[in-house]
């Protein structure tokens, strides 16, 4: 049994649905082939199983502790990360000159998926570092790249993202941290940052905080936010790590899940000010952060997918081995009990998990593939089209997996019954870990507003139309394929309904009633999510149907037939859920908006 991801499914997604091998036609990836992709994924899986999975429960039970001076955590976390760095994962997608192997983002994300599925909280440290490194590589100057980026790629420095403050989470325009110029390109920062993942630890020589703050002359709101590098220790011109900077850990937050990842309230400038360096130009900090937001949000969706996937595989194996009860037609009480996988309701719970996790994996890897295309294409027009498509898919790729793969974790617990509710089994921990994903990187409420209020509407709905054209193309390809007809028909109907709803809500907003138009942005996100995941299932079903027609290899028939069965389930049981959301949206329901506060 595969424990993190079904490797057959991963290969199906990467090579049969996404044709990842075609990436090697881009000059940057010319040295690669399926052999190197598979070798890297094999190494990731080994490392994830050998070094990450074994301490996931222990890190959850023994969360990091702060003694007032420094943070203590179980040694296995550091050992796993040393092995991760030594194997070259921190720099995998960078050029060979930077110590990387120019790995496509699609494959790097497939590896990331394996690590997160094995142990999300240990994996968070390198993920934050990679995100911070990606930002510095685009927006940092040459000096900053050599003093901070290079050691991060070597795994000597780790990174963080310091956006949130105690009073400003969703609304970053309200942050209060201030930066005063002190000459020579340096600034003194003062303020408190809340929720900072990986904000303090002893895992690396120092920690590179990327901090959003306001300059003295900053205009109010989001147009007045600048980005600073503020290291935990001073780093001199030659890159030497020196004395502590004025960044203090005020305390660790005690969380529901992700407990191996330190989560910190950090005080910048309790004494004379934390010394920082400006990244890029003043007042552009938030746009730099958003630059890497697509990648980061798709990454959150992929992480959520993998926690769901691990729970699915665990509950599937359990269901095959747990004897309990008899079939409805088995009247003899002395007959041996069946494995619970034979019960219709257990099969339903397994099927629901399957369509959620495999559908979400298809979407998040599809987005990673689009990111590769966007970054490699020479054609400016093609790039602009890819940017548009990614813009509209991103809130869905973040929110849908974080809602539905969390629901998969709930179902995994249910499959295990009482055992699932205990800490002797991993499924309750997976649920707790996954419960973060609808909250961070922009709550799903914010994603709904982003999708309906911005992405679906801007440029006369250009991105929305581009997405619909993609879906139409798949529907057209499915026209004559009998095996996928139920899903094709259901999806065609839903997509038309979604387009009408989008146009209707757009008219409502343009007519001035923005409040009503946005009142149900979360049901809108949900409906669009099911539309897009339905599309992902149709794409998979088409590949499976073609493979079955061509005559599959010996062990593959059940796999492909499983894909077709899942697509039928999606058509029969999931599309109707989106129809329910559509009905809400068509009704322009304002009851929650209109109720008086006192009425709650």
């Amino acid at each position: 049994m595969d424990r993190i991801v079904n490797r057959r499914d991963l290969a199906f997604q990467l090579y049969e649905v996404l044709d990842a091998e075609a990436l090697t036609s881009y000059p940057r990836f010319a040295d690669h082939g399926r052999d190197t992709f598979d070798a890297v994924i094999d190494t990731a899986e080994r490392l994830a199983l050998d070094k990450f999975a074994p301490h996931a429960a222990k890190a959850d039970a023994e969360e990091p502790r702060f003694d007032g001076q420094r943070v203590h955590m179980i040694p296995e976390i550091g050992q796993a990360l040393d092995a991760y760095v030594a194997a070259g994962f921190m720099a995998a997608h960078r050029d060979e000159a930077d110590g990387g192997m120019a790995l496509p983002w699609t494959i790097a994300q497939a590896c990331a998926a394996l690590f997160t599925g094995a142990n999300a909280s240990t994996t968070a440290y390198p993920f934050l570092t990679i995100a911070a490194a990606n930002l510095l590589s685009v927006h940092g100057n040459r000096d900053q790249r050599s003093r901070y980026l290079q050691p991060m790629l070597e795994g000597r420095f780790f990174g963080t993202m310091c956006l949130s403050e105690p009073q400003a989470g969703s609304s970053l325009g309200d942050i209060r941290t201030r930066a005063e110029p002190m000459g020579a390109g340096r600034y003194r920062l003062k303020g408190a940052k809340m929720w900072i993942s990986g904000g303090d630890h002893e895992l690396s020589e120092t920690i590179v905080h990327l901090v959003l703050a306001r300059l003295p002359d900053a205009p109010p709101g989001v147009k007045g936010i600048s980005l600073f590098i503020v290291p935990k220790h001073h780093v001199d011109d030659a890159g030497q790590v020196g004395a502590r900077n004025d960044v203090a850990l005020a305390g660790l937050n005690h969380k529901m899940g992700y407990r191996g990842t330190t989560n910190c309230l950090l005080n910048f400038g309790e004494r004379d000010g934390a010394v920082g360096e400006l990244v890029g130009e003043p007042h552009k900090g938030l746009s730099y952060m958003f630059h890497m937001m697509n990648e980061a949000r798709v990454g959150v969706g992929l992480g959520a997918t993998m926690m769901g996937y691990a729970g699915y595989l665990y509950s599937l194996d359990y269901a095959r081995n747990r004897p309990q009860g008899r079939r409805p037609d088995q009247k003899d009480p002395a007959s041996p009990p069946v494995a619970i996988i034979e019960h219709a309701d257990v099969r339903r719970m397994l099927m629901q998990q399957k369509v959620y996790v495999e559908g979400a994996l298809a979407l998040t890897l599809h987005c990673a593939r689009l990111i590769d295309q966007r970054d490699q294409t020479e054609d400016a027009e093609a790039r602009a089209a890819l940017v548009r498509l990614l813009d509209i898919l991103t809130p869905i790729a973040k929110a849908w997996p974080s809602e539905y793969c969390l629901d998969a974790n709930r179902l995994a617990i249910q499959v295990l019954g009482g055992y699932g509710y205990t800490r002797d089994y991993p499924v309750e921990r997976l649920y707790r870990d996954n419960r973060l994903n609808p909250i961070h990187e922009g709550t799903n409420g914010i994603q709904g507003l982003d999708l309906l209020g911005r992405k679906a509407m801007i440029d006369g709905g250009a991105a929305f139309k581009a997405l619909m054209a993609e879906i139409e193309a798949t529907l057209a390809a499915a026209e004559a394929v009998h095996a996928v007809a139920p899903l094709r028909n259901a999806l065609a109907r839903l997509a038309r309904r979604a387009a009408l709803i989008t146009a209707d809500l757009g008219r409502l907003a343009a007519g001035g009633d923005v409040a009503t138009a946005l009142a149900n942005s979360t049901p809108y996100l949900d409906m669009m999510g099911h539309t897009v995941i339905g599309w992902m299932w149709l794409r998979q079903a088409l590949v499976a149907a073609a493979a079955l027609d061509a005559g599959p290899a010996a062990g593959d028939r059940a796999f492909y037939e499983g894909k077709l069965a899942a697509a039928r389930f999606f058509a029969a049981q999931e599309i109707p859920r989106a129809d329910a959301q559509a009905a809400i949206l068509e009704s322009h329901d304002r009851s929650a908006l209109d109720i008086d506060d006192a009425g709650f």
Partner: protein
Amino acid sequence: MKVLVPVKRVVDYNVKVRVKADNSGVELANVKMSMNPFDEIAVEEAVRLKEAGTATEVVVVSIGPKQAQETIRTGLAMGGDRGILVEYDAETEPLAVAKLLKAIAAEENPDLVVLGKQAIDDDCSQTGQMLAQLLGWSQGTFASKVTPGDGTVDVTREIDGGLETIQLKMPAVVTADLRLNEPRYASLPNIMKAKKKEIAMKTPADYGVDMTPRLSTERVEEPPERQAGVMVESVSDLVAALKEKGAL
């Protein structure tokens, strides 16, 4: 000093193997395959000898299907210099493999052949011993420590009740046990470098070796299901229970 490391492609150690429906063997379709773990230890030891400046070249050899190239690549990504694949699709038996390795040793003239003490698919633990016999070389089996000297190699062996250190004259055959070392992961930059290393493609006919199996498999079955245990209160209860079962 040249080191030859034979490696076998086997069902991955994480895979729970299933018996085929017709009881003719174990299910191999869609099953993850990887390098025999003891062979990984052998590769690691050879690479360490190279890193220490003792070995000058590490040649990784496999006998198996075309896909065994991937297994050799893993060895090359761990630090091997070049590979040889003797392509053979059917099941291999230790004697035929030992004969092929003997022929390869005659061409390559290695000072040391390091291989796993056994392969985790058939668990034979015979290839190294047969090879040493066929070559007329000394052998150090079940090694937990390997220290080359001048024309000799000291091998610490895991034996019943302890450790034994023997000195072998080179050329010699050494088989690796679990505690010899902890093999490294094929790092990403080295996976790229391995892609450019050479793998020579051969067939058994090139070495004039007859691969016809000497053994035939009658039937493969799952081990009998384990019966539930009972908890006993004390040692005397345990002794009584064992006597009752006829075990004492």
